[in-house]
Every structure is written in C-alpha cells, then in structure tokens.
C-alpha cells in the first residue's frame, strides 16, 4: 500500500499538475462565490463556511477525478489490477493520496479564504483544524470509490459529482454547520452530534469502498 501511495505522490511531486490546478480552481471558486455572497457584509460569517466548502468540494471533485483518470492513460489500471495485492488495498492507497492532496490544497486555500473574508486568522484556523481533516477523509473515500465507477461511463467528468454529491449530503451539511457554529462562538460540545455524523460517514464509506472497490474496478 505504501508503494502505491509513494508512486502517486512522486508523480504529483514531479509534475505538480493536480495540486496546482486544484489550488487555482479553489481560489477561482472563492473569488466567484465572493461575488455571490458579499464578503464585506457584517453577517459574512453566516455565508463564509458555505463558500469555503463549496470551493473545496468542487475543486476536490475534479482533482479526485484526475487521480483515477491518470491510471487509465496507457492502461496503467490493468497493470495495477494484475499486481498481487488486495483491491481493497488499492482503494485505501488511492484514498490516502487524495486525502493528502486535498489537505495540502486546503493548507493554501484556508488562509486565502480567511484573507478574502477578513476573518480572525488564529481562531479560524484553530476552529477548522479538526473538522477539515475529518470531512476531507470522508470526501476522499466516497470520491475515490465513485471516481473509479464514473471512469467507466461516457460523460465521466459529469458523472462523478452526480453520483457522489447526493450521497455526500450528510458530510457537507455537517462540515458547513460545524464551521458556521464554531465561527459564531459555539463550543465543541454543542456540535458534537455533527462530529459523530462525520465520523460515522467516514467509517461507512471507508468500509463500503473497501468492500466494493473490487467490483468497481474489475474488468
């Protein structure tokens, strides 16, 4: 599994194409959404979490799509499937790569978001420090599973969000609600039910992905 993880990370480090496009697309979305939701409004803390998560989700969706699409070029996927490893392991490796890429992009996107929306830096970062990795884990897991599926359809770029977003409703609702509540001064105890929901979602889709990835990639 670590070999697979390492392979993908080396490719990314050498080309930096996914990370660069992920970051730029995220920034662009922050900009466009700032036009829609006034970032100078005194009530901006109500709309800001939605803006951040929409930017992460949309740029992340195309990044996850790319990570699986890359295996299709030169038929790398067949080679990967011929390797004597459990398909579930491939799923975990791909999920881990996507998680690392998304978190790296968030590391740049979140300061920009704070900058654009003129929010207090330290407290916002502290508030996002737990929810962002947890929500991104579930997003990477469900994204990896459904990217493998949408790879085998016509119209594959549009299929991934269509398949994934309705199922990921609980994840996004929880992420946005936690971010909003924490930013308006709630403590962790008040949002613990949302945290439980995110953790449950992560567990469900790691298990479902691990069990069904085999069918999703089988020829």
């Amino acid at each position: 599994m670590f070999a697979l993880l390492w392979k993908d990370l080396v490719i990314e480090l050498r080309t930096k194409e996914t990370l660069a496009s992920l970051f730029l697309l995220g920034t662009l979305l922050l900009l466009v959404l700032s036009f829609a939701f006034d970032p100078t409004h005194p009530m901006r803390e109500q709309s800001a979490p939605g803006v951040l998560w929409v930017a992460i989700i949309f740029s992340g969706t195309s990044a996850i799509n790319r990570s699986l699409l890359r295996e299709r070029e030169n038929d790398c996927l067949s080679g990967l499937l011929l390797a004597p490893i459990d398909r579930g392991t491939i799923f975990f490796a791909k999920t881990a790569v996507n998680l690392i890429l998304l978190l790296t992009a968030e590391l740049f996107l979140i300061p920009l978001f704070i900058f654009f929306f003129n929010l207090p830096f330290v407290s916002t970062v502290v508030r996002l420090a737990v929810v962002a990795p947890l929500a991104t884990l579930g997003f990477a897991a469900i994204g990896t599973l459904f990217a493998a599926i949408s790879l085998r359809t016509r119209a594959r770029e549009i299929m991934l969000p269509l398949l994934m977003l309705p199922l990921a409703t609980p994840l996004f609702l929880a992420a946005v609600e936690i971010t909003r509540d924490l930013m308006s001064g709630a403590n962790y105890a008040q949002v613990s039910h949302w945290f439980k929901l995110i953790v449950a979602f992560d567990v469900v889709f790691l298990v479902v992905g691990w069990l069904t990835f085999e069918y999703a990639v089988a020829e």
Partner: protein
Amino acid sequence: MKPSPTISDRIAPAAVILSMMAALYMVFIAVPNDAFQGPVQRIFYVHLAMWLPTFAAFGIVGLTSTLFLWTRNRRWDHIATASAELGLLFCTLGLATGCIWAKPIWGTWWTWDPRLTLTLVLWMIYAAYLLLRNLATDPNQGSVMAAILGVSGVVNLYLVNRAVYWWRGIHPAVVVTKEGESGLTDPMMRLTLMVCLLAFFLLFVWLLRLRVRTAHLEDDVDELRSRVLAAGV
C-alpha cells in the same frame, strides 16, 4: 417462446383497475370534505398513497443490489432496475402532488422541511442511479456499478435523514399541520386512505412484474442477437 399468461397475469390488471375505480369514487364522491381545508384536502389520499410504493421500491433496490453483488444472478439486477425506475416515478408523483397540495395550504410550493429535503436527496440518488446504468460503457459493468450505488444509497439513508433533520431542526408546525389537520377522524376518510394505498400499491406490483419481464425479454433478445452475429448470418 411466448410465455403463456398465468392466472396472476389475468388477475393483476383487473385488480388494479377495480381498486383504482374504487379509489376514484371514494376520493371524489364518497369521502366528506375536510372541515378546515375543504375539497383541496382530497389530494392527500393520492399523495400519501405514493409513498408506500416509493419506499418499497427503494428498499427493494437496496436488497436486490446486495443480492446481485453477492450472487451475480442477473435476475436480481432486473428487479433492481425495475424498482428503481418505478420508485423514481412514484417519488416524482409524490413530490408533485405534495407541491400542489402545499401551495393552497402552506402558501408555498416548496419548503425546506427535513422530510421534503430528504425526499429530494433520495430523488437525486436514484436519478443518478438510472443515469449511471444508461451511461455505462459496458452493460454488465453498469449493473455492477449501479448495484454499488444501490447499496451505498441504502446504507447512507440513515445519515442523510439525521443530517437534514438537524439542519432544519424539527419544524413541529409543518409536521403537525400535515397530520393534525387531516386528523382522519371520519371512518370514511380512513377507509378512503386504505383503498388508495391498496390501489397504488397494486399498481406498483403489477408494473414491477411487467417491467421485470421486459428486462428478461431484452436479455433474451440480446443473447439471440449475439448468437446470430456469431453464426455470421
């Protein structure tokens, strides 16, 4: 090989037609007007009757998808497709009749009440499910991938449910109005509801049978076609 019609083939359409006629008669003539809402409330019987087939259908999709992944028997796949299509149909009708009822009673076509939100999310999941089948590059693969989505959909249902309820909080006004206002104190109202539920459920079962059979025939035609092509005719 034309399958000869069985007894249930003859009974099913007759039962559907009879129960539908009975339902129409009850809804429009027999049942008294609602004390508060007037004649508008009569749509309730049809509206509620849509949800039994919808949830039965989505439940069947989850169950048969699991069985299909497990056994790889095409039979389960046919049932899953058929019930996803019908579930989506009844879900659409349920949403539509709900909107029509909501406009005069709540004064709006749509509210972001948890129940409505949940239904819309469900609708999206199963619409994507059918799209996935049609857009798969290889039909066999499409069945497998759709089955994965079918299983994920059911597993996820509880989480979606929790999320939308917490998102909106519980809106007692809407829920209480919805059930409290109908009240169904009149025995005739209860009877009408039962007849409607039965009529639409029978319709669902009948359509499901027909649709599954069509899927089997499509499979047979595909097989014959490939045999003819292989023989080089």
